[in-house]
């Protein structure tokens, strides 16, 4: 069955949708778009589509990915324009292209995610002090972060999952850019990095003012480069 990889953004009011909300909203938008949807089998059939990675509530996404299965071929241009007529405010489709129906799922090949994080400062900070702080953080051999699994407190080391960390001071805010491990194992959340920066290196930020945007997803390179997200080839 024809499968299409769709790149979209989730911003504005839509950033407050949970992943489940997004799934529901997408199913209804696909139905409104009157695309020849492929349905799952069974008593309660659903249109077949899947996302690369869930976005937490409140986190905006600039370049998110979604695979949609159709019963027949439709031009990518047509898919983009039909979807943009039916998605609610804040969800915009930017790209669509066919992928092989044997291509591995988005979720399976996801490696990294890039985030932009804005936080208000709790005290004075210069760009060089920030740089010093980031350098000393990256120099740590391990960074413990608390996790909660079935009500049991555990810790994990997030340091191996931090691939890049940069930042600058803008007026009373600090803006960080980070690339973190994403996917089913070793996933690192940007809040964990922010907490680490505050606790380990004394970065003067107000964690509760943290505003996160996911700006890119990176997938494992495969033999057929068409089968992964565009950004995959960057690193």
């Amino acid at each position, binding site marked *: 069955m024809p499968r299409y990889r769709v790149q979209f953004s989730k911003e*504005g*009011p*839509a950033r*407050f*949708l*949970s992943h*489940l*909300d997004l799934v*529901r*909203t997408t*199913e*209804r*938008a*696909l*139905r*409104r778009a009157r695309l020849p949807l492929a*349905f799952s089998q069974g*008593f*309660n*059939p*659903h249109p077949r589509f899947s996302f690369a990675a869930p976005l937490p*509530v*409140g986190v905006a996404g600039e370049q998110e990915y979604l695979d949609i299965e159709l019963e027949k071929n439709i031009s990518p241009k047509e898919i983009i324009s039909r979807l943009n007529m*039916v998605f*609610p*405010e*804040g969800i915009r489709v930017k790209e669509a292209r066919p992928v092989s129906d044997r291509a591995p799922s988005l979720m399976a090949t996801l490696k990294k995610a890039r985030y932009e994080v804005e936080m208000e400062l709790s005290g004075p900070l210069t760009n060089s002090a920030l740089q010093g702080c980031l350098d000393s953080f990256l120099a740590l051999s391990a960074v413990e972060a608390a996790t909660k699994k079935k009500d049991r407190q555990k810790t994990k080391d997030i340091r191996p999952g931090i691939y890049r960390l940069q930042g600058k001071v803008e007026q009373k805010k600090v803006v960080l850019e980070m690339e973190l491990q994403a996917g089913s194992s070793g996933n690192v959340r940007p809040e964990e990095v922010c907490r680490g920066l505050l606790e380990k290196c004394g970065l003067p930020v107000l964690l*509760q*003012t943290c*505003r996160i945007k996911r700006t890119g997803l990176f997938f494992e390179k495969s033999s057929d480069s068409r089968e992964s997200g565009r950004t995959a080839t960057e690193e």
Partner: protein
Amino acid sequence: MNPKIERVLSRVQKPARYAGGEWNAVLKNWEQTPVKIAFAFPDVYEVGMSHLGLQILYHLVNERDDALMERVFAPWPDMEKEMRQHRIPLFSLESQRTVGDFDLLAFTLQYEMTFTNVLNMLDLAGLPLRAQERSAQHPLVIAGGPCAYNPEPLADFVDLFVIGEGEEVFPEIIDLVKNYQKHRDREKFLLQAAGIGGVYVPSLYLVEYKPDGKIASIKPSREGVPERVTKRVVKNFDAAPFPDKLVVPSTEVVHDRIMLEVMRGCTRGCRFCQAGNIYRPVREKRPETLLEQARELVKSTGYEEISLVSLSTADYSQVARLVGELLDEFAAQRINISLPSLRVDAFSVALAQEVSRVRKAGLTFAPEAGTQRLRNVINKGVGEEDLLRAVQSAFAAGWSAVKLYFMIGLPTETRADVEGIARLARQVLETGKRLGVPRGKLAVTVSVSCFVPKSHTPFQWEPQDTQEELNEKQALLKNLLKTKGIIFRWHDSRQSFLEAVLARGDRRLAAALEEAWRLGCRFDGWSECFRFDLWREAFRRTGIVPEWYAYQKYDYDDILPWEHISAGVSKKYLIDEHQRALKGILTGDCREGKCSGCGLCVTLEIAPELSGGKEVAPLQGAV
């Protein structure tokens, strides 16, 4: 988005409740639209967005060039805290404007337990609570819905109430608001509004009391104000405005599907039921109309389910035909059809069987009372055999779970009636076992609520059972229903008590309501928020005895707090029905062609509208 609001949304649970931007939400040009209305649902978003009335009025108003309607819901306590802390006034979802900027703030009153939320929303909007303290710079505060049929507990807070169906009255109010914008004289506006049929302006009525606390008189204080306000109803319901678009919530709401209203009103005549009286007469839409509306809605919403809604959908004359045609048309698109309520009979089960490919949820039946005697008292024309046959068909068709709704505290109820509930539940369980429903799967849920005597019903004169009595009956049932396979659920009798106080109360309750809100009462219908201790304190501080309201047995001669509001059903009929109830005499359904003489059709100059059904000739001498 407003950055201040956006920041706060990152910190509250379920921020999608306040974010707006849903599909089919209408954002109109503010400057170019003369009349601005905020529709306020005094409960949380997920409940409010499940309300069909909101969608109907939203569509009706936004179709007009000269008016706009935006939505606002009660903020959950975490959001309220943030709003107060950061001085964010109550805002609408569409434009995120403060509610104080609108011309009209229109509340819908679906249940009494939302009254403190009404006050809280007024306060969060920065409006004085009391109508007399508001001026022309504030929006007009109006309210409608079933609880407007006894509007008195909210009389001091609301400028005007709409009695009856909003589709009829709203256009006339909008026209009057346009006129008001020229003169900005609130008093003049209210006086003119009182001349519109179905509009009740509480400040234009004087209530006097007797030494014993009962009402001595309710009279208009100005000339031209009607002594009685009679409800408005839509005539030719088939042609009534119905949305071709629904706002589709992005987050999950309670009823998350197309609500296709197949008829309005119900003629079964259950004597406890307020809806059965206030939504009369029964009016059905034609199947052709419904099919067309379903087509439009499927296209415009993308929903995967159509629910056929009404007070009793199995009673809709053309229900089998409609279900068949909907299935034929929409099965290929994998769109499900659902029925929200079932009648207690095999026909209903057959219908449910036809529409559901998956027997996922259990089926729900409402015998309401445990013995035939008491079911006759309440005019629930259901026999034990009907119920057993219905559950037999359900189990045979593959369902393994059924839910049974009952009430305790009904007039004339004895211990035997309460025991009857348990006996019936066990019979249903036995039926399931006999039909071979697997032990682990077989489940009979017995859900028992407490009877609340409601205005405009034959039981409006009856007192509520005391909390002690209700608690004893619940304890008895808990004991009798301790069986594997039966799940017993009951209603907090304290909440039912408060519901009765607010449902039967008069204007003097305003003080207690305001005090309860000041003490922090919100979302009284939510058990996790309900603070009976604070309510008790509020009654104590204001010197109001709530028991006096809940446990009052009224005489037919007494002036009831809602005496000046008419649902179109005659007092004579309600008295007759009350008498027949006490004697256990059943009254037939006028759908069968025999008028039961409620007087409504004569008073409102209307007739039941049955789609391909019988003509009903009203008894002329009934009023």
